[in-house]
């Protein structure tokens, strides 16, 4: 293939979708963007960005461990990210209570162990694991039909849980003490939510890379919350920004052959900076 960017968007779009791998990438990217934005909106509200980042690092030992065991890479992502979520959920409880000081120590430890394990698996594996760079910074070339279908199932699952638990989760996220006194199962919800973050991160890491998940998980949600304080608008805007960021990044990555993660991060960061700036000016 010899990608050539013209100034005619119709021609460009036509060129993009003529390859099945590009259609797969667009579908996978869209699913991942929606899931990351929805889960990320709650991550920002709960101030659990550090947890989100650490869980995305879990994808690294996940992928290298799966390669070592001869399993599909995707299974490694999901097992390690969800396992990491459960480790953080149960490790950060002191005498049955959630403790923030304990939590950040546990999260940091889990992150360090993840990197060490990832490197260990990689050196034990010895072979060429696609390329480490692809793993860390993302690629859309290898997205198969099966991967798209798996992402669709994960997106449906995350969407279903959020549809059922959305309101009490919002209550517990923004006003934990009142929610707890009101009978909301705050602790159970925090475990369920960490598992959702694990799923979202495992899905996202397969497309944008282990190190740059953060950009799609946190930045669109933070940007949307800067622009509006209305819950419905804010959620919808976060999803729209994440989807547009992904589409733009896929297009740029296709025509320039540079890493997808770079464009996702740059666009997301520019949007966030613009939103902060706009809010500053409005004051």
């Amino acid at each position, binding site marked *: 293939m010899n990608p050539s960017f013209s100034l005619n968007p119709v021609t460009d779009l036509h060129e993009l979708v003529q390859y099945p791998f590009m259609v797969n990438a667009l579908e996978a990217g869209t699913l991942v963007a929606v899931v990351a934005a929805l889960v990320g909106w709650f991550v920002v509200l709960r101030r659990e960005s550090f947890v989100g980042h650490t869980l995305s690092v879990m994808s690294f030992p996940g992928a290298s461990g799966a390669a070592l065991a001869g399993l599909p890479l995707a299974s490694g992502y999901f097992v390690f990210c969800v396992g990491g979520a459960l480790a953080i959920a149960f490790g950060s409880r002191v005498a049955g209570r959630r403790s923030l000081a304990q939590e950040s120590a546990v999260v940091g430890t889990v992150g360090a162990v993840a990197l060490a394990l990832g490197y260990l698996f990689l050196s034990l594996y010895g072979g060429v694991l696609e390329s480490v760079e692809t793993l860390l910074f993302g690629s859309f070339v290898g997205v198969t039909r099966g991967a798209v279908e798996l992402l669709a199932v994960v997106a449906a699952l995350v969407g279903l849980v959020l549809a*059922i638990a959305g309101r009490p989760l919002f209550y517990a996220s923004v006003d934990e003490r009142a929610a707890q006194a009101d*009978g909301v199962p705050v602790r159970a919800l925090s475990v369920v939510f960490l598992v959702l973050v694990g799923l979202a991160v495992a899905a996202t890491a397969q497309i944008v890379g282990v190190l740059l998940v953060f950009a799609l998980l946190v930045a669109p949600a933070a940007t949307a919350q800067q622009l509006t304080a209305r819950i419905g608008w804010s959620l919808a805007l976060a999803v729209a920004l994440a989807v547009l960021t992904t589409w733009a990044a896929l297009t740029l990555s296709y025509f320039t052959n540079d890493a997808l993660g770079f464009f996702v991060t740059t666009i997301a960061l520019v949007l966030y900076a613009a939103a902060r700036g706009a809010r500053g000016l409005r004051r």
Partner: protein
Amino acid sequence: MTSVAQLRGAAVAHGDATVWSGADLDLEAGEFVGILGPNGAGKSTFLEVLLGLVALRAGTATVLGAAPGAHRDRIGYLPQRRSFDESVRVRGRDLVALGLDGTRWGTPLPGGFGRRRAAARARIDAVIAEVGAGAFADRPIGECSGGEQQRLLIAQALVRSPAMLLLDEPLESLDLPNQAAVSALVQRLCREDGITVALVAHDPNPLLGYLDRVIYFAGGRAVAGVPDEVITTETLSALYGAGVEVLRRSDGRLVVVGQPDMPAHHGHAH
């Protein structure tokens, strides 16, 4: 007067340490009661007993004619020390709404229709107007001042039209004019809506003019009565086991001086 909550021979403990015991206390319908005493005396624990969140070690408790916790939906509760910093980008109105339906499963779609949604919206508007929060309820709560946030949180506790309102330190970290304004607001809710209010405060002075009765927790005991009976140099000194002086100002209002661990603006050296 009818009693809405009674404790008889009640005792609570944290682990092996008894917090207070032998408490015979009543809350009457429609009265404004101040829950006073030093830090760690068990004031918040008293509210948690009424809510059914803390079990008694001894004695009995009845709340709204049943065991504590049975009528949780008829009690509005404002937990201690909540404030929202500038990064919380959620409207005050949405926090008030959580008091109404925050525990229900599901996710409401924005701009919903239906009679139930319309009724909920009308109730939220009414309660926001009642606490005087109309001007700032649509702003992100993190951008509201401490006094404005406290009004919105009282609206959240009030939105289910409770028979009883339990407020834990709502005056903490407010400046003096806001302490007076929030005290007056709570007294008005009590008088106009007939709600029984129990308000926990560390410093009795900004409140004394508004209260019907006080319950003092200190030294493992509880003493209840009208302010003129309980807030005396003899009673408080005996409760604290230290010299506490009660002065009567020229306008007849009481002022407590020298209470151990009282805020610094009373000239008590730490």
